[in-house]
C-alpha cells in the first residue's frame, strides 16, 4: 500500500500546507509518494519533503501543467495512484487543490472530503472530521469507498520532522493534450507573506478612519513578520485591496496570532478568523462583539495603542 500526496509550490517554495499534507499522509501509511506537477517547483525544496515523511518524490516538470487545467493534472495524479496501487490521495484545501481533489474523485470513483481538520479515526471505518459552516461547526464523515480523496485544512496536523532529505525522481505522465486553459497574464501580489499561509496576521477595520492611516498597521505587521488583512467594509471602500479581505466571503485564515484593530467583529468577519489560535482585539468600544471571541483585549484608541505596542515589541526583540 501507499498514499499519494499532491504538492503545490509558490514562488519555488513548497507551500506549508503541502508539507502538512505529506506529514498527515505519513501518519496513515509508511509509503508516502509526493507528486509535483509543472515548472513552478524547486528540486532541492521538493527533496526536503523527506523530512516530513515523504518516502518518494515524483516530479513531472512539463509546463502544460502550469495553466491550472484541473482535469489534466488530475489525470496525471490518477495515473500515479493506479501505477503505485495507492487508494488514498491527500492534498491541501486550496482553490486549485479542492478542484483537483474533485476531478480525481470522479476519475477514481473515490469518496471525497475537503476542509478536513484532523487525522482520520480508523477504529470503525475511515472517519474524517471536516470543518463546515465556515468554521462555525464540524461534521464527522465516513469515507466509504475504497478510494479516498482527502483535502486537509491548514493546521490539521502539527508537523514535526520524521525523516531526512530524499532524492527526487522525474516522471512523465501519459496524459492527452495540453489543457484547455490559455493563461495570458499573471499578476502576483508583492510582499513575501501570503495571507492564507501566514502564521501571524494584523488586520484592521473601519475604526482606522481612512486608508492613509494604514502605516502603523503595516509597521506592526513588519515588526511581527505578519501579513496584513482587513475587514469587508474596508475592501469594499477600496481602502485596501480585495485580496486582503478576511471573512465569510473573503479569505479564511488560521494563523497562530490574529490581531484585530478597529474591527467590531460582525459574525461574517468572525467566520473568516475563528480558527486562529490566539486572537487579540484592540477596540475603543468595550461592547464590540469581537471581545467575546478574543483571548486578549485592549479597550482603547487604536491611534494610541498601536504605536505603543510597536514600541513594546521592538524593545522586546
Amino acid at each position, binding site marked *: 500500500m501507499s498514499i499519494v500526496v499532491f504538492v*503545490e509550490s509558490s*514562488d519555488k517554495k513548497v507551500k506549508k500546507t503541502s508539507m502538512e499534507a505529506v506529514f498527515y499522509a505519513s501518519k496513515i501509511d509508511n509509503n508516502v509518494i509526493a507528486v509535483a506537477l509543472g515548472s513552478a517547483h524547486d528540486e532541492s525544496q521538493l527533496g526536503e519533503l523527506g523530512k516530513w515523511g515523504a518516502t518518494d518524490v515524483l516530479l513531472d516538470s512539463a509546463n502544460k501543467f502550469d*495553466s*491550472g*487545467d*484541473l*482535469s489534466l493534472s*488530475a489525470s496525471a495524479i490518477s495515473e500515479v495512484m493506479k501505477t503505485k496501487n495507492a487508494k488514498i490521495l491527500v492534498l491541501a*484545501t486550496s*482553490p*486549485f487543490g*479542492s478542484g483537483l*481533489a*474533485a*476531478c480525481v*474523485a*470522479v*476519475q477514481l470513483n473515490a*469518496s471525497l*472530503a*475537503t476542509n478536513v481538520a484532523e487525522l482520520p479515526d480508523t477504529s470503525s*471505518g475511515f*472517519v474524517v472530521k471536516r470543518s*463546515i*459552516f*465556515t468554521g*462555525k*461547526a*464540524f*461534521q464527522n*464523515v*465516513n*469515507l*466509504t*469507498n475504497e478510494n479516498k480523496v482527502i483535502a486537509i485544512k491548514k493546521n490539521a496536523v502539527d508537523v514535526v520532522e520524521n525523516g531526512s532529505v530524499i532524492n527526487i525522481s522525474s516522471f512523465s505522465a501519459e496524459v492527452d493534450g495540453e489543457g*484547455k*486553459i*490559455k493563461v495570458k*497574464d499573471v499578476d*502576483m*501580489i508583492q510582499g513575501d507573506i*501570503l495571507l492564507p499561509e501566514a502564521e501571524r496576521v494584523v488586520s484592521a477595520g473601519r475604526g482606522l478612519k481612512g486608508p492613509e492611516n494604514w502605516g502603523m498597521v503595516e509597521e506592526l505587521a513588519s515588526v511581527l513578520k505578519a501579513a496584513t488583512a482587513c475587514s469587508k467594509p474596508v475592501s469594499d471602500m477600496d481602502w485596501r485591496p*480585495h*485580496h486582503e479581505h478576511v471573512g*465569510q*466571503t473573503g479569505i479564511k485564515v488560521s494563523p*497562530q*496570532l490574529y490581531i484585530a484593530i478597529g474591527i467590531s467583529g460582525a*459574525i*461574517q468577519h468572525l467566520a473568516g478568523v475563528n480558527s486562529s489560535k490566539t486572537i*487579540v*482585539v484592540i477596540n475603543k468600544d468595550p461592547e464590540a462583539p469581537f*471581545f467575546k*471571541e*478574543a*483571548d486578549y*483585549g*485592549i479597550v482603547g484608541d487604536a491611534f494610541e495603542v498601536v504605536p505603543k*505596542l510597536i514600541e513594546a515589541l521592538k524593545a*522586546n526583540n
Partner: protein
Amino acid sequence: MVCISHVPDTTSRINFIDNNQKFDTSGVQFIIGPYDDYALAKAVDLKEETGATVTVLNVGRAETEPTLRKALAIGADNAVRIDADPLDSIQVATLISNYAKGESFDMILMGRESIDYNGGVVHGLLGEMLNITSISPVMTLKLNGGSAEMTREIEGGKEQVEVAMPFIAGCQEPIAEWKIPNMRGIMTARSKPLDVIDGSAVDMHSDAGEYSLPKTKSGVKLIDPENIGELVNLLKNEAKVI
C-alpha cells in the same frame, strides 16, 4: 445555467439537534448562497448584454422553492429543482450532471463554494463528469466570441485566462454587483416556469455522522492600554505565539 445553494443566512447561529445528528433549522432564515448570488448577478448581466436565457437550478426539497423564486425575481428566466436530499457533494454534482447532459448550456455558473458545507468542489466534479473545463475562483468574466476571458484568483495573485465555451465557473466577488429584486421582478417571478425533476437515488460515497461545535473561548483577558508590555509578555510566555 446558474446553480444556487439554499443556505442559512450569514448571521445564523449554528446548532444541532437529535443527538447532534441534524442541523437545527428553527429560527434560521435561508438565502441564496452569497457566492451563488454573485454568479446569478453575472448571468443576469450577460443576459442583458447578449439576450441569453438564464436557467437557475437547485438540488433540494420543496422548501428551497422560495429561494428559486427569488432568483427568478432577480432575473433568471426559468427554474429547475431537482427533488432530492443529497448527502454529499458528489451526489449533488451527479444529479446536476444527469440533468445537464440532456440540455445544452453555453456556460454553467455557480459560487466558488456553498457557505453551509464549504466543499468548494461541485464545479470541479461537474466539469469532470460533463467533460468540460471548470475554473474557480473567477473574479471577472468577459465574453469574446466563442470564448470567455476571466480573472482567476490563485494563491498569492491572479491570472488572466481564456477558456472556450462551454465551461463551468465558480464565481466570487467582484465578478458582478449583487442584485436586489424589484417589485416588477417579484411579480413576474410568480408566473415563470419552475420545473421539478425527480432526483432518484444516486450512489453514496460517504456516510454523514455526528456534528460538533468548536470549543468556546474561555473568556477575554483585558489588558490596560497603559501597560502594553503586559500584552507582549502574555503573547510571548502564555500564548507562545511571538
